């Protein structure tokens, strides 16, 4: 399964409570669209840390890394490439 698919499934299942793929665009801002709130983003971070086996540093908790499916996919790929 691709990183994108894993993330989409997780967000659809846990925040939008649906398997309707059209409910989430990969560039939707979680903050602007109200998809995830300040505690929800912590759950997303735990998910990333568990599934992709790296630690998200406090300084990495910024919208450029986490605020959309695309941003997270890029962030994960960067982290994996750096290992």
């Amino acid at each position, binding site marked *: 399964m691709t990183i994108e698919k894993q993330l989409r499934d997780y967000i659809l*299942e846990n925040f*939008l*409570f*649906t398997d309707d793929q059209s409910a989430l665009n990969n560039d939707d801002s*979680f*903050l602007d669209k*109200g998809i*995830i*709130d*300040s*505690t929800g*983003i*912590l759950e997303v971070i735990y998910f990333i840390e568990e599934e992709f086996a790296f630690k998200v540093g*406090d*300084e990495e*908790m*910024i*919208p450029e890394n*986490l*605020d959309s499916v695309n941003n997270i996919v890029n962030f994960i790929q960067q982290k994996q490439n750096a290992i």
Partner: protein
Amino acid sequence: MVQSLIHMLQRTVQKVPNAEAIIYGKTRVSYEQLWSISISVACFLSEQALKKSERIAILIENSPEYVEIYYGAQAAGGVAVGLNTAAKARDLETWIRHSGATWLFANAHHPELPRLMQTFGKELKIVLIGESNKIQSEYNWKNIVNSTNEEFDIPNITNSNDVATIIYTSGTTGNPKGVTLSHKNLVSNIQSILSYLKLTEKDRILNVLPFYYTYGNSVLHTHLAVGGSIVLENSMMYPNRILEKMVSENVSGFSGVPSTFSLLLGRTNLSEYDLSSVRYMTQAGGPMPPANIKQLLDELPHIQFFVMYGQTEASARLTYLPPEKLFEKLGSVGIPIDGVTIEIHDEHDKPVDAGVKGEICAHGDNIMLGYWKDPESTNQVIINGWLHTGDLAHMDSDGFIYIDGRSSDMIKSGANRISPKEIEEVIAELHNVQEVAVIGVPDDILGEVIKAVIVKRPGEYLESREVQAYCKSNLPDYKVPKIIEFLDEVPKTASGKIKRYQLK
């Protein structure tokens, strides 16, 4: 005493017309500009023949426009009704209908707006803030802002008990609770808060609290009353961004609820930021773990940290813990603010001695007029002029109050007081649900998270996700249960009341 919020703002504008009132992204609004647009709103409403005490609903996130509409509505003699922007159409419809609002100022992009327009039709006059391809209205914010307003005189408040604002705290369709606050309520509470926070025109606060809630509402009005500046940020989702903004805007104050501070302490490195400009921080909205208070003060030893307690029904604030007593009285919510008397009452409504647990009861000019159009509920909480808070506490021999719990079933998640009944009412609408009970269970960051315990109808199939999806489409996200448990039956007392404590 100044008559009303609008008179307070007028005084500030005369004192510091060019000072920054609101900073929102790249927009910086001076007091003079804020006043000018507020008066434009008032002129518009007057031209539209707004009657005294007519209700004006506001459905827009924290922004300069929210403030301009709120003050403009009051300048025109109306009653401002700030609506929870996270709410879904069913709650919004209930509140608009219950308040009898004739006007709605709304963000044109609010996802529930098309349904509201369909429901109310011409019954509700809607002013759109911003532009949207999907909806249109006869009334447009730009036209209001661009109108001239030189001739407008703000009215005198002849009766300080006139209604200034209504704040809805609960959305159950059968029993919406609209806390009704007078000009006197708001002004007296602001004066009391100013006397202990000692705010001045030099203060700049970074605010993440929604203005439609009483805590955010009081942060807004206290700072505008002294000519301070309010830097708006609408989410704690990226706490590092909040700290960067605090540094770049040189803020002197920050207000939060316990989960706000948990996020700051847990997901940032406070010592990496130069927060030397910060003079004070305030905390309300539920108990903050003493360990977090100690950690915060270890990281930021130069700040004054104010623990506070209050209720919407008290215009916001009832008590504060003087910072110099913070560690001596750690765990206490402090002493009554100026103008407020607090007693702890027993089950016979008689004051108890120091150290004895009872219900917090409060008396003062800040106590609400009542719940809008609901004398029965009002009479249950205001008895002989005393507000009965539903919070259990004891007072020590020095008069410091310690909260021991709540006598009601309300769930406290983040800073939200959530009625289980509201959520139960929604879940019970699912045809395959026979019975449902909603409770709060402990959570490290939010204090409590929502759990729904469901008994399915015999032979029916139901998944957690279906329940959560239905809640999400009918309730604000923070009211969607995090945990769903299916049981064969719900424990009850002999009289049929759910034993919620057994479900935790």
